[in-house]
């Protein structure tokens, strides 16, 4: 069991299997209504983000991605949590709005580049918050 300390972007607790993306995906135009990656140019085209801990280096794309993430959270098909290396206002806003509207709390966390490299695709992790610190446990 390994623990990584990150920074809280949005609050919440989550657990699940990591889906680590080779490059960032835009929620608008990149994630479809079934929770799958629909961007045909994305290397993980077709992968399902639902209930996974989505790990990608940064956000990407249109500010209307807020809408798409809030809609995924409304429908209960969003990722369980998101881990990034830099904060992203678009993704954060989608989560903040869904928390206000639907009480759907999806944690978003940033980690250092070194810790990012330690989080491997497919591994099970849990995320919990302690103030502004985010505690990520690998293989809990």
């Amino acid at each position, binding site marked *: 069991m390994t623990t990584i300390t990150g920074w809280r972007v949005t609050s919440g607790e989550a657990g699940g299997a990591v889906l680590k993306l080779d490059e960032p995906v835009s929620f608008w135009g990149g994630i479809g209504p079934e929770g799958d990656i629909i961007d045909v140019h994305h290397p993980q085209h077709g992968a399902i983000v639902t209930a996974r801990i989505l790990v990608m280096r940064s956000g990407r794309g249109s*500010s209307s991605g*807020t*809408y798409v993430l809030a809609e995924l*959270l409304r429908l209960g098909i969003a990722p369980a949590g998101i881990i990034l290396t830099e*904060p992203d*206002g678009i993704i954060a*806003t989608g989560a903040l*709005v869904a928390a*206000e*509207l639907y009480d759907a709390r999806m944690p978003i966390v940033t980690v250092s580049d070194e810790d990012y490299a330690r989080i491997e695709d497919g591994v099970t992790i849990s995320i919990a918050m302690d103030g502004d610190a985010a505690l990520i446990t690998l293989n809990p």
Partner: protein
Amino acid sequence: VAVPLTLTPVEEAMLAGEHGPAVALSMRIITELGRIRGAEELVDIESVHIDGCIFYGQAGLDFAQKLVALGGKVKVPTTVNVGSVDLIHPTLILQNNDREKWVYQGGRDLMQAYVDLGCRQTWTCAPYQMDSRPDVGANIAWAESNAIVFANSVLGARTDRYGDFVDIAAAITGKAPRGGLHLDSERHGDVILDCTSLSPETLALDVTYPVLGYLAGAIAGTTNPVLVGIPSDVSEDSLKAVGAAAASSGGVALFHVVGRTPEAPTLEAALGPNVDAPVQHITAQRLNAARQELSTAREDKLDAVSLGTPHASVDEIGEAYDAIIGGPALAEGVAFYISTGRSVFAEADRRGWVKPLEEWGVTFVLDTCTYVTSILRPGTRTVMTNSGKWAHYAPGNMGVDVVLATLGECVESATTGHVTWNRELFT
């Protein structure tokens, strides 16, 4: 290590609910976003432009209607971007299937919610073409990428990249996080685009500017490009085209044109401390290649022309009038759209241009745009446009092929029904 966001006593009271539940909800979003972005304080804003009024799903409608139910009202003058419906000509919007019907009804309800929140019914992506414009240095919170880049670059106002939900939260609170392009330190040029080798003929063409913008976005990404060698009398419409394309191919939110835009009286002023900014040479060859890349059409038969993305100005409608009226008729089977805002349309009508254009065959699209909602007839395959933004997005959004062309090429092709364009136009 983040510096904590400090609020004034009034802002604390807003957050605590003393100004009502809609203000408190909006303030939670603004302050959380400020914390996430590392802002040390909030800034008072003078106006807001809302982009959240295009219908993408129930969550957006739920948010707007919740703010209405909580008694929300905008605190500063607030304009609205295009919606999903032309409220003046609702039958233009197709309702041929369940999805189109869902977008039509949801789109109408969403637009009504923003009216209920106190927004002006502008329904345009070009709020900068309206009567009141922000002054140089004014802090504003505008959403929609072309409006953002125009306000920062051409007007010299200051807005960061705001998007859906944050826009209305800023309008209801009159606040935004002080960060990003509100700060002097973020507004200097990062990369120089040297256009001095382009011929005077090329610099006088309308279609040069969307192509230039497309290249600028591809080169600059989310940084600030500085254009050198552009005529100092270049029109606002050309600058609009540069910005809209640069915000589509890249994430440009501010560009400078030396000798033309307010923060670039000289190259030195535009660059500030970035004296070693890299230089890219924009040649005619690069422009021709970029235009060919954007032009996906392989068919000879033309189905439609779409002008007015971003919304056409009064001058642009006048130029279309001059190019069309007195010439040949519109070819059978070709649709010809001009998208514009209500106030520009009213002025064009007052000048006597609308009726002759409509009699020739122009369809004016108000309140929305041909690349965001179902207007193009089923079976439309090949469309010509003078907009770099339209050319960038429509193939993905609408499944059509495009040719990015001059106004003259668009009109000539519309009268023959055949796609005609000079692939080596730029010199």
